[in-house]
């Protein structure tokens, strides 16, 4: 089943700083909720594991993360695909855009994601709420990381 989500967030830092953080595996790892490992496999790809819980279904997802449509320092598309074993799969992507605004940099995101298997069967009606919460957590963490710079 598919879901979409979009939003924006103003970060208290300039565009090049935000861009650098968006490309720093250590920062991403610290900010992605449940992320356990995130290893760079090339300049535009990572190998990741993340522990995610949707309602009654929890699983460790292993997958690849790719960066495409890179337009430094204005944005990219980050996409990933993970298999959670018997819990099912999750895949999706987000188009991230940066824009200089008063007080810092506005980050706009447009997410589309698909889940399948047990995640969809049992967690289907919760997925939007969980995804929104994860996005909020990510950006709260990311704002902290950016501010710390």
């Amino acid at each position, binding site marked *: 089943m598919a879901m979409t989500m979009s939003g924006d967030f103003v970060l208290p830092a300039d565009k090049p700083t935000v861009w650098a953080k968006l490309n720093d595996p250590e920062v991403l790892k610290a900010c992605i909720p449940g992320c356990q490992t995130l290893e760079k496999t090339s300049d535009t790809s990572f190998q990741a594991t993340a522990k995610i819980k949707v309602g009654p279904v929890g699983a460790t997802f292993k997958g690849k993360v790719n960066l495409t449509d890179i337009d430094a320092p204005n944005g990219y598309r980050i996409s990933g695909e993970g*298999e959670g074993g018997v819990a099912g799969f999750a895949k999706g992507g987000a188009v991230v855009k940066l824009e200089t605004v008063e007080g810092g940099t506005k980050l706009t995101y447009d997410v589309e994601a698909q889940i399948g298997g047990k995640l969809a069967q049992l967690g289907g009606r919760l997925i939007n709420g969980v995804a929104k919460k994860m996005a909020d957590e990510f950006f709260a963490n990311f704002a902290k990381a950016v501010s710390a710079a």
Partner: protein
Amino acid sequence: MTSTGIGAPVRRKEDFRFITGKGQYTDDINRQGQAYAYFLRSPHAHATIKSIDASAAKAKPGVLAVLTGDDLAADKIGGLICGWMIHNKDGSPMKAGAHPALAQGKVRYVGDHVAVVIAEDYSTAKDAAEAIVVDYGVLPAVVDMNAATGKGATVVHDIAPDNRVYDWHLGDKAATDAAFARAKHVTKLDLVNNRLVPNAMEPRAAIGDYDAGNDAFTLYTTSQNPHVARLVLSAFIGIAPEHKLRVIAPDVGGGFGSKIFIYAEETVCVWAAKKVGRPVKWTAERTEAFLSDAHGRDHITHAEMALDDKGKILGLRVKTKANLGAYLSTFSSCVPTYLYAPLLSGQYDIPAIYCEVEGVYTTTAPVDAYRGAGRPEATFVIERMIEVAARETGTDPAAFRKKNFIRKFPHQTPVIMAYDAGDYVASLEKALDMADYKGFGKRRRDSARAGKLRGIGFSAYIEACGIAPSAAVGSLGAGVGLWESAEIRVNPVGTVEVLTGSHSHGQGHETTFAQLVSARLGIDIDQVAVVHGDTDKVQFGMGTYGSRSGAVGMSAISKALDKVIAKGKKVAAYAMEASEGDIEFKDGRFSVAGTDKSLAFGEVALQAYIAHKFSGQELEPGLKEGAFYDPTNFTFPSGVHICEVEVDPETGVTTIAKWTAVDDFGNVINPMIVEGQVHGGIAQGVGQALLEGARYDSSGQLVTASYMDYCMPRADDLPSFSIGTTVTPCPSNPLGIKGCGEAGAIAAPPAVINAITDALGHEDVTMPATPQVVWQAAQKTLRKQAAE
């Protein structure tokens, strides 16, 4: 009639066992050294399997084996079969794609079997499955039937490039076209028969056991028909020859059709038992039941009915697409064809009928027989059409039905069936009376004053039960005959064991069958034991489905009882030194006509085994007789259900205010059990009409895979039913029985929807008529009322 004889409301003998937790279901059985199976299922609706890496899973402590489709192929284990061949309009055979028990190269629905892990315990098997790495090549899903048969759709099976399993028809197209050409009025309707999940209380389970000493297998399984399971596993799947495979179906907790079929899981358990050298047990979790039990219904239909200027039906034209899912389940092909179109004449004299059915592959769970199997779908079409035709011609729906009822029997319909007996006017009139139809206007006005919309809906259903005779079903494509067997073993003390090929999964056979034997032999009901569900005990049988156990299974028992009594007379003649022709059998005693000499049934049984009074040359000792009974026709139960609803246009909630059912089941053995079957059937039909709907999203994920999202009927969704019967004995079997197991589920959905559409004043209501659906439909009603 005695207190336990035919027609007595005897309490169910089996219920003491069930309600005190002493039932023995498959999951209650545990074999020495048993291991556990967990099936890794596809999370994708449609994907190629590029590779399966099970090395990490196999290395986990406690894991005995991880098996895949490759292992099945290496052992030359055949695929699951569909046992009913349907031919296309052009005479070519249907397109049945291969159905391996574990996927080979491709998965075709969410829940499809990718691999099985066998381990020391269930948790270990489940955990190890997490470690299996499957590389899927995800393909597009297709869940919508119109999309599946449209241009450019993804192909589920290469053998059917347009996803059509068959393109079948029945009836006389030219005669039907001619009827429409002279019609004064044509009623047209588009109908959706919603997809259902069977939801038996007991989930499916299996234990495979292999005896290396004898090279023989035993399968314990949740089956409605263990002999058919053995036949398929032996002759087609190739597990072992029949004499080396014993199938035991112990107590079975509901099935509604879903336990007729031979599934991947039991096939794998029995095969794997030999591979790992241990008994292998699997019990479905509820989510697995949602994903992989064969679903029911799922039709889209366009129907047209031609009427003359007096409101008489001239013809019926029906075009249906039936979703068969990703693979053809055991009997799936016949459900939307021969169990559907031949019922489209309903209770009506319709001179011309033409029906076209396309069976469609989609990337969803297989769809097969579910309580009623084809007949509810047909009844929904004809009873919705009749109601709408009556409305469009301004005729009272009861009067419209009476005008078109069949009144002379036997009646040959234009779609195969020859109805043997019935009195449709009698059941309608009794139902109208019981439902206080005359008082409906006042009740409707009372509801209106309270801001509610009240409606009344009819359903005058017919079903064909006891699917038969074998030669007839064979000519229509059935792979087996549909007779039944029985054996009566009389013990020396006069107690009786009845071995039957029918298999109760909740119907109360241990009681009704014993009532028949008790009444016929004049012995106490507690002297009778019913033995079923074990291929080592009962030689062969066709099982329980299609409301056939009374009409076919009990007829076989009756036939065997005739033989027991005939042999008993011979024994009694020797024992009483009389001529066999002078022996009479009545009320449990053999007597010599015109004398006071008599022997009780038990005394004659003892004489048959002692065998002192006759030589073996004259008469064989012992008292045991068997019979195979093949019916002469289907049976045709019928009836009228009237549903009265009150719709709250503010909330969309539909309340069923009154339910009247008058059924003609022919002769009845146990009216209490029959009434229970009617209650359950209505509840299930109301579930379909108001609450239940299996939904896949466009990516093929089942989004109603738990009771959180799939709504089952509860007691408070239903009123207290008003139940009555009429009786026209069935002339096609010796007991005059017609069958009652599916009637409620067949009758109820159109009665509910006819009532809701009557309340709302328009036809735009789909099943399940949830509050959301009804609220939206009610807004249209309110707008119409405001405009008037």
